[in-house]
């Protein structure tokens, strides 16, 4: 696969997850390590990921939730979206590939009403050319504030966010009941972690509200919810102190 880790591109969240899980080759792992070593943003995210794993380990089970990759993906997608707002927005996992892959000279022809027209991808233009071609296609597009498709999309995203919030709420209710039996230190550790996850959701929701119709921002919010749900489910299943006692 082409590089997703150029000096200007962050490591994709999926790649980070695979790296932390030990699921990529040594050569790919070396590339990830090199990028993380040189990129403070990615290093912070990896530390955050590891930190969450540590929090969970403190609670008893030495396995970080395997779905945390989505959290980093959301953050990086949002960063990409901010960096490239106004330009063509590719998904993060494609953005990296764009950097080095496309060199072909390809033209796309449309037969329009019996005439043939070139809408133009040429040379390395699929990177910039994608933008150019898209610009031609989208001339006269409506603004974000009045586009009914954007309104429709925003409704769908809000519905999904509500589902995430509902699931997290149910887990939280279970946790509230369970942790009444816990010792204060454990309750404090869980509360501290939940407060951080709540902050992430509030922050992500703020970003999403500032950028309605931005799929990357919505994905960032969903990722924050998934992190919270993963954590709550882990804690609920791990249960009260000593749940494993006698079982091992």
């Amino acid at each position, binding site marked *: 696969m082409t590089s997703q880790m150029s000096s200007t591109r962050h490591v994709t969240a999926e790649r980070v997850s695979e790296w932390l899980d030990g699921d990529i080759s040594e050569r790919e792992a070396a590339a990830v390590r090199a990028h993380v070593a040189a990129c403070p943003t990615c290093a912070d995210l990896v530390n955050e990921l590891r930190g969450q794993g540590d929090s969970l380990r403190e609670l008893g089970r030495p396995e970080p939730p395997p779905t945390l990759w989505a959290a980093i993906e959301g953050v990086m997608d949002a960063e990409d979206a901010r960096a490239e707002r106004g330009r063509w927005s590719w998904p993060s996992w494609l953005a990296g590939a764009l950097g080095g892959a496309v060199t072909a000279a390809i033209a796309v022809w449309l037969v329009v009403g019996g005439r043939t027209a070139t809408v133009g991808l040429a040379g390395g233009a699929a990177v910039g050319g994608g933008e150019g*071609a898209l610009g031609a296609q989208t001339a006269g597009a409506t603004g974000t504030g009045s586009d009914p*498709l954007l309104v429709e999309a925003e409704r769908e995203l809000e519905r999904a966010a509500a589902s995430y919030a509902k699931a997290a709420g149910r887990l939280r209710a279970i946790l509230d009941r369970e942790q009444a039996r816990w010792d204060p230190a454990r309750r404090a550790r869980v509360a501290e972690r939940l407060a951080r996850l709540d902050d992430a959701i509030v922050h992500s929701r703020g970003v999403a509200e500032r950028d309605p119709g931005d799929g990357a921002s919505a994905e960032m919010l969903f990722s924050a919810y998934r992190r919270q749900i993963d954590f709550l489910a882990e804690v609920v299943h791990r249960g009260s102190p000593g749940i494993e006692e006698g079982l091992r």
Partner: protein
Amino acid sequence: MMTAAAHRPPLSEAPPLAWGASALSLALVLIAVPRVSWAVVGGDAGVVVAGAAPVSSPAAASGPPRAVDGRELIVPIPGAERLRVDNPLGGIVVRAWDRADAMHITADKQSSSPEALARLRVHFTAWAGGEISIEARVEAGGRERALPLSASRVDLVIEVPAELGVEAKTFAGDLSVTGLRAGARLETTGGRIVVNDVHGRVITHQLRGGQSVAAVEGDVDLDGVEGHMHLDRLAGTRVEARVVDGDIRAEDLRSDDVRLSATTGAVVLFGVLRPHAHYDLRSYGGEVRVAVVGAPAGFELRARSSVPVVSAIPLATIWQKGDRMRAVTASSAARMTSTASAATAASRPVVELSSVLGRVVVESVPLVDRLQ
């Protein structure tokens, strides 16, 4: 309702791609143009797309008029190793076909109006590194976006060489993969996930919709928030499934490490217990049940339940405290006194069953019942 497929003419077979020495990749943008019959030819590359004009179909029996459009593409993909599909606008079906050097893509679009239909795009890109990407996008707010819509949709059916690794993502559309031999990674917010006859690692992430995963020769890691999970005939080293609000039913698992956990739903394992294997079944609020098929060769049970464990298989308790207990099957306990007990104990499967609020049940199912 008239379907998009009804408008699709027979597919023209594409001639082989003539890959020039400098042609490291191909980027092809498929653009819906209202009321235009169209073909796309990539110059010397010789890629052919057969399509049909978007048409406003007659109103369905109870639905509003729909504009529909169908496109098909067969494209050579020499050297391709991985396929990534991102379709927030509808469903994705990926299935293996018998060609090793080409891919067949069918895109069916539907919308409430031709104008909205024309803003739905499907992009196919072949990258030099062996990666193929297919993306559905909507043009909105002046640029293309990866956004879901409720009144418009794009459904993708993709036939691929079996050895292609697949990653696919939808928003509300269903995800289905069949016949793959290099694993699959699937993510959806609200679509149902169906996996069948796959070799290689299978990983899923889902908010809601349910999952059915069957006949996998590889490790399986399923993650869901809402919806039931059904696992059947899984033969990797490890099977893990987690769901918050839904049941997990697993049958015929041939893995040595099985971890199934539901928060509010039931967890049911049905099948033969393998020697040396470890089964960890947990629920917070639901029943946890293991139905052992065939004559049990003996296993160790570690259970947590607020009510007494219900077991149809005689158990000998080793340790018990509060709602937790350890036991072995009575037949195993008898063998523990014999001289061959060490080897027997080492190969004995361990079954952990935990339910905070629900029952823990151990059943015995005669093999003959299973075969009927």
